[in-house]
């Protein structure tokens, strides 16, 4: 399942069918044949579908515009030229029946403008010395990266934050997988009132992270917090959860795991309900033990989804910042790397330093993801 979800996308090979149908179409009906695609226009024709010409013209004109016009006007000129090129692509696709590209284009354009272009921009910024509260900008090459990795002050701090993040990733993901899995087993059967109890378990996922963070400080508060009230009653001492590192990490892990275990539960549940029931019936006729029937029937169905859940939650756990901000503000050794990046880039205005550091983080995430997908793919091919 993970294979079909993440890696091995099956392409629909219905071209052959289409050709066959096309022949059928021509021979059996009296309708006119489908229009054939006109030839591509010559390079210099001022036609609306001459995209090669449009790209060349746009490149020349935008260089001129950037050199000659003020920044804002140049920006809009370049924008208009890009729109022109896009329009020629659209007309070209229409005239030649490239419906695939035409349908996909708006989505790709949107993702390019809001995700990929900013990404390249921040890659560019990471090679400059730039602070968002100053106007100066100086090219410094790899200086920011070298600083982040080898500087006496910054490198140990980054390294420590990365280690804290690793602790969070391992703890939260393990807790979420375990709790989510157990909850899914509980809800896999049909029983009275199931619908109503399921929605109760799903509610934490729907809460705003701000409310969760702030209310967990309420629960953990040393004087009126519910947790400390219960513990104080039991041990007769003053209990402060967040006073040491283990307690602080535990507190954040608990809140995060509580909030996101339902997500893992939903994924596993989707796998559990998709197991055909006749397999269990056959197993019970053969008197297979329930342990064995779990491992040989149920588990293969949910393995892919467990891996998907593991992937999603690990990526999210790497980004963990908001709960840390709300619960400890990074104190007591709970500073995570993405909060650190956020602080550098946002609060200290060191935009390019933050960009460099987040690229290092992105590199780690991509390497880990690809390693994981590689292993998952190999495993599922062996099985």
């Amino acid at each position, binding site marked *: 399942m993970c294979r079909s979800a993440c890696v091995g996308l099956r392409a629909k090979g219905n071209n052959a069918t289409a050709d066959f*149908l096309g022949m059928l179409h021509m021979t059996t009906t009296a309708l006119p044949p489908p229009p054939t695609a006109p030839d591509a226009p010559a390079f210099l024709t001022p036609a609306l579908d001459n995209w090669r010409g449009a790209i060349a013209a746009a490149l020349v004109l935008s260089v001129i515009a950037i050199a000659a016009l003020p920044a804002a006007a140049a920006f809009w000129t370049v924008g208009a030229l890009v729109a022109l090129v896009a329009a020629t692509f659209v007309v070209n696709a229409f005239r030649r029946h490239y419906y695939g590209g035409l349908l996909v284009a708006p989505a790709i354009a949107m993702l390019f403008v809001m995700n990929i272009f900013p990404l390249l921009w921040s890659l560019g910024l990471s090679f400059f010395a730039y602070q*968002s509260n100053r106007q100066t900008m100086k090219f410094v090459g790899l200086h920011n990266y070298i600083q982040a990795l080898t500087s006496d002050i910054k490198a140990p701090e980054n390294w420590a934050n990365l280690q804290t993040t690793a602790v969070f990733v391992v703890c939260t993901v393990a807790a979420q997988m375990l709790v989510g899995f157990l909850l899914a087993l509980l809800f896999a059967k049909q029983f009275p009132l199931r619908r109503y109890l399921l929605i109760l378990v799903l509610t934490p996922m729907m809460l705003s*992270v*701000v409310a969760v963070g702030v209310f967990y400080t309420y629960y953990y508060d040393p004087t*009126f917090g519910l947790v400390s009230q219960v513990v104080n009653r039991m041990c007769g001492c003053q209990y402060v959860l967040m006073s040491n590192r283990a307690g602080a990490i535990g507190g954040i892990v608990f809140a995060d795991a*509580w909030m996101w275990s339902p997500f893992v539960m939903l994924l596993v549940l989707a796998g559990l309900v998709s197991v055909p029931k006749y397999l269990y019936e056959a197993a019970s006729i053969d008197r297979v033990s329930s342990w064995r029937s779990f491992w040989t029937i149920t588990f293969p169905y949910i393995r892919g989804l467990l891996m998907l859940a593991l992937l999603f939650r690990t990526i999210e756990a790497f980004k963990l910042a908001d709960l840390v901000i709300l619960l400890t503000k990074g104190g007591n050794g709970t500073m995570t790397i993405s909060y650190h990046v956020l602080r550098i880039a946002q609060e200290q205005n060191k935009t390019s330093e933050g960009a460099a550091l987040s690229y290092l983080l992105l590199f780690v995430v991509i390497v880990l993801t690809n390693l994981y997908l590689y292993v998952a793919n190999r495993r599922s091919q062996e099985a």
Partner: protein
Amino acid sequence: MADIITKTPIWEKLGFRKASGVSEAGWGHTALAAIVSLIYFFPVLVIIITSFKLQTDALAVPAKLFPTSLFGLLPESMTFKPTLENFTSVFSRAFTNGGAVENTGFDRFFFNSLFIAGTSVLLALVIGTLAAFGFSRYPLKGNDTYLFIILTTRMLPAVVVIIPVMLMLRVVGLSGSYLGIILLYTAFNLPFTIWMMKSFFDELSPDVEDAARIDGSSDRRVFFKICLPQVLAGLAATFVFGIILTWNEFLFALLLSSVDTRTVPVAMSQAVSGGGIGVLWGLLAAIETLFLIPVFLVTFFMQNQLLRGVTFGTVKR
């Protein structure tokens, strides 16, 4: 035919029935599940209870958890008097002690949340469905690579993207406007919309479409009359999932919204820190309770679709 005539009794609608063809567990299982889910739900329950408490009750030790004493069954120290004051003061309250009652602007923030989440999810649905149909029916060269890159955009740490987006929107003059934040959220919702809708389109049998083409339907007609009606459930699933993700988004909203376009999570975080008298727990709880209701209802009525949505459509029910 018989089930058209027989009316479903009310208790069956409430879930007191045996679902067909699924392994059954009885009321014992229900009891176990009820205990577990109530424990799991308890922190949310405390938030809801707190929204009916005055600040003094919210800070009381030992905690007052019950709104009534159940005719004297519970001691006075465990009960509080429920009040609706928090809910009215969400929308208008006096900011200083004894000052005039002012509008807090939360009606606006609730509208912003609804408008921004709704528009961006719908926009992503339109663009994403078209793209998914393209990916599914007219595969491009390197189709898989495109799809994988689209999924990777979900993996980026928000920080990497957010700073250039802020700079970009400032240059274009869209910073703090509805359009800017809606476009960003649309891009944020697109990847899983495309993935989910593609898996729904992949499942449809191409025979029906081919039959329609033989009968002379145009490609556009095939899409609107044949394919789209068959994936309505998929559209609903994608919508619910998108709403849940967008509704509570905090970081982008914090950095991109202005006073006019502020969403509720951002306003909530500011209501928490404002005033210098510590957190007003009852007020915060009331905001969250109100904010939870819409998404709770949507999820409740589209629960089955959600199960599908969360797997990016990879699991068939």
